[in-house]
């Protein structure tokens, strides 16, 4: 018989820790909350201790890691908010909805800061295309899902990258990045403070969809995963568009103390994160939460990952004002609880208290931390061996060139970005297909350049050097477009951290990224970690995706990579 705690994904040691902290056994609801919140996806328990290596501050960093998104100054009182997020496992099972809801989630992170989302990018990995119907199905579905959501939201998808390699066959990677524009004094945080202030819920009703999504993202994909179907959610971009406009309008009123999206681990995550940041507590009543399905029990309401929902902490007495604005956008808002002055997350079902836990203990700051043993893979030296001399020179260079150009990893990606509306909002000065995308910043002379990069083959052969290369490749792309690199967001996709090789790859990669970012003066302002990207057949190549933003002081001075005119001089720069 499996223990109760094992059923929610906790280890014996972790369970003992909970009992000690509470001074009692947790009840079933509480245990489930720990289960999802201490999942790898929510708690970063295997990665957090490495984050200290990242350079995360600098004169232009207005918000580093730890919030819904990072924010970097671009002058003129304006700033850029950005973050990247993975949605790998859902996309492996339902590519369209998996990718779509990934985009939806990252957009919410950006407008939760008060920023207007202005661009989307993505980074995708699949198995080899040739003759593989399943991989083609995944690629088509993922691209359509990204397009479906972003296009409907009216946010241009301006860049991205895709690679095909067998290590991703059973476990594709779908990382979505969103970039927002914000005025310095409009920055909002996900904080619940001010005793008596109201906790309000806006957006879609809560259903049983996505229950256990965070744990699902924190486990190895198996045949059985197919059965974890409830973990797949359906996106509603129209609802999110309304939510976006409503939230941005609300934030202008000054009635909002804090705002947080309901993403992985749903309500419980949003509640304990905002309470922890506010250094207070919170009471909520699950009966007040709008529901889509009947018969839902408190734990289901607390951990559901239904999409397109936000939590607002509203100044007491101004709830009606919030209702009015929300209503204008065709949505509903309800008060589900209030901020308290103790440090507890107290959950009511009507009058009855059904759970009471120190908020901080659920949050990643209270979760366990692991620094596993690490060692390079035994076959690394073998892998790294390459005798250039042993490779014969191709006899027919033109046919070799043609073959190279036709290979999916090198070929034009127009088939993909033609499906993304990359021009809406008419700011896209350099469109997909060049080194980096460039957007003008309306009302200024400035622009920003955006790119995502990672060569995971390099990272497989040498995670530290490969990760450095990812940073400098991104920087070169920015520079070639006319920008000065100013910050990155990183999407760290790895196999299991619980094997010495897995953790070694992760560790090396973080050290490499840190070193390169320090050297390039591009602080890490946000990011995401996705572990357990593996199947029974093995782990993916380490894939630390770098999303970089660069600043262009004068938007009239940008450059694209195409040759312009016959007779122009070609210069090879560098060593």
């Amino acid at each position: 018989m499996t223990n109760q705690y094992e059923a929610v994904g906790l280890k014996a040691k972790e369970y003992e820790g909970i009992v000690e902290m509470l001074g009692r056994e947790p009840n079933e609801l509480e245990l489930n909350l720990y289960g999802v919140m201490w999942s790898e996806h929510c708690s970063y328990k295997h990665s957090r201790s490495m984050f200290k290596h990242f350079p995360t501050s600098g004169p232009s960093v207005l918000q580093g890691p730890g919030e819904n998104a990072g924010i970097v100054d671009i002058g003129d009182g304006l700033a850029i908010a950005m973050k990247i997020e993975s949605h790998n496992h859902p996309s492996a099972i339902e590519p369209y909805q998996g990718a779509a809801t990934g985009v939806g989630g990252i957009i919410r992170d950006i407008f939760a800061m008060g920023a207007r989302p202005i661009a989307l990018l993505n980074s995708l990995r699949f198995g080899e295309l040739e003759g593989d119907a399943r991989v083609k199905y995944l690629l088509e579905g993922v691209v359509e899902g990204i397009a479906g959501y972003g296009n409907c939201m009216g946010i241009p998808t301006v860049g991205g990258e895709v690679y095909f390699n067998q290590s991703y066959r059973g476990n594709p990677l779908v990382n979505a990045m969103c970039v927002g524009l914000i005025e310095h004094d409009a920055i909002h945080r996900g904080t619940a403070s001010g005793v008596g202030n109201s906790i309000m819920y806006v957006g879609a009703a809560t259903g049983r969809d996505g229950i256990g999504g965070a744990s699902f993202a924190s486990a190895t994909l198996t045949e059985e995963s197919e059965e974890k179907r409830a973990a797949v959610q359906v996106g509603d971009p129209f609802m999110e568009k309304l939510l976006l406009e409503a939230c941005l309008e609300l934030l202008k009123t000054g009635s909002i103390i804090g705002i947080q999206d309901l993403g992985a681990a749903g309500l419980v995550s949003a509640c304990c994160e905002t309470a922890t940041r506010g250094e207070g507590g919170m009471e909520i009543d699950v009966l007040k939460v709008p529901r889509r399905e009947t018969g839902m029990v408190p734990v289901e309401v607390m951990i559901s990952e239904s999409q397109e929902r936000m939590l607002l902490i509203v100044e007491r007495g101004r709830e009606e004002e919030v209702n009015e604005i929300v209503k204008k956008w065709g949505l509903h808002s309800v008060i589900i609880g209030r901020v308290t002055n103790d440090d507890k997350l107290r959950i009511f079902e009507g009058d009855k208290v059904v759970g009471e836990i120190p908020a901080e203990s659920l949050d990643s700051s209270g979760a366990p931390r692991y620094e596993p043993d690490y060692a390079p893979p035994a076959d690394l030296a073998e892998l790294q061996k390459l005798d250039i001399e042993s490779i014969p020179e191709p006899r027919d260079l033109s046919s070799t060139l043609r073959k190279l150009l036709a290979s999916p990893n090198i070929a034009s990606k127009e088939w993909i970005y033609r499906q993304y509306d990359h021009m809406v909002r008419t700011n896209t000065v350099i469109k997909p297909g060049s080194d980096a995308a460039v957007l003008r910043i309306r009302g200024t002379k400035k622009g920003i350049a955006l790119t995502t990069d990672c060569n995971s083959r390099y990272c497989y052969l040498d995670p530290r050097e490969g990760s450095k290369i990812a940073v400098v490749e991104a920087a070169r792309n920015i520079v070639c477009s006319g920008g000065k690199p100013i910050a990155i967001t990183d999407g760290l996709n790895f196999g299991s951290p619980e094997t010495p090789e897995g953790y070694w790859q992760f560790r090396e990669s973080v050290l490499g990224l840190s070193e390169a970012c320090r050297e390039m003066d591009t602080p890490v302002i946000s990011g995401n970690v996705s572990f357990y990207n593996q199947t029974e057949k093995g782990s993916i190549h380490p894939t630390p995706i770098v999303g970089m933003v660069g600043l262009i002081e004068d938007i009239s001075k940008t450059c694209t990579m195409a040759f312009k005119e016959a007779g122009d001089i070609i210069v090879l720069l560098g060593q």
Partner: protein
Amino acid sequence: MRFGIVVFPGSNCDIDCYYVLKDELQQEVEYIWHEEELKEGFDCIILPGGFSYGDYLRCGAVAQFSKVMEGVKVYAHAGGLVVGICNGFQILTEAGLLPGALVRNKGLKFICDTTPLKVTEANSPFTNQYQKGEVIQIPIAHGEGNYVVDEVTLAEMKTKGQILFTYGENPNGSTGDIAGICNEGKNVMGLMPHPERASEALLGNVDGKKFFQSIMHYLEGGKNND
């Protein structure tokens, strides 16, 4: 001139049109919320692109019933200029202000690209600054831009000069390569491509600017070009 841009929930090219008219062409321009009644005094109403009401049933199907559309219909029947771009075109066909319907692209995919358009009729309030037969480059961005219409109506539209733009390289399977049409009265027009995305030098293309300039020219009492 005073332009009104209707904002439906889910509209997302509203601001693009707004900036072109205001900043590039120095016109008076105002947003009109879908729940408002249409006020007096507009010289031209634009229904912008986007995904009104999510376009979940058929594109434009729900938007036709919004409050503002009652006024737009009256305005159109009285001869006022109404332009539907992309989703706006879909709304105008659903509302019965333009003939035909727009269905899923033949290739089933959403297409975002810049494509050659032929000005098939310069004698209209929307095309008078172009030359008949002129080929311009205009962006498209749609999943359901495949125009269908029965043969009788099509023949009539041809004789009456209602087909204003055709695709140079048909991207979506549209009947007769149709990209933009107007009604018989030539005061209501719909087009799938986005001239507002091609009206600014910084974005590398100004072929769409004459579309708006045509409307201005017409409103100023200028002659149509034939």
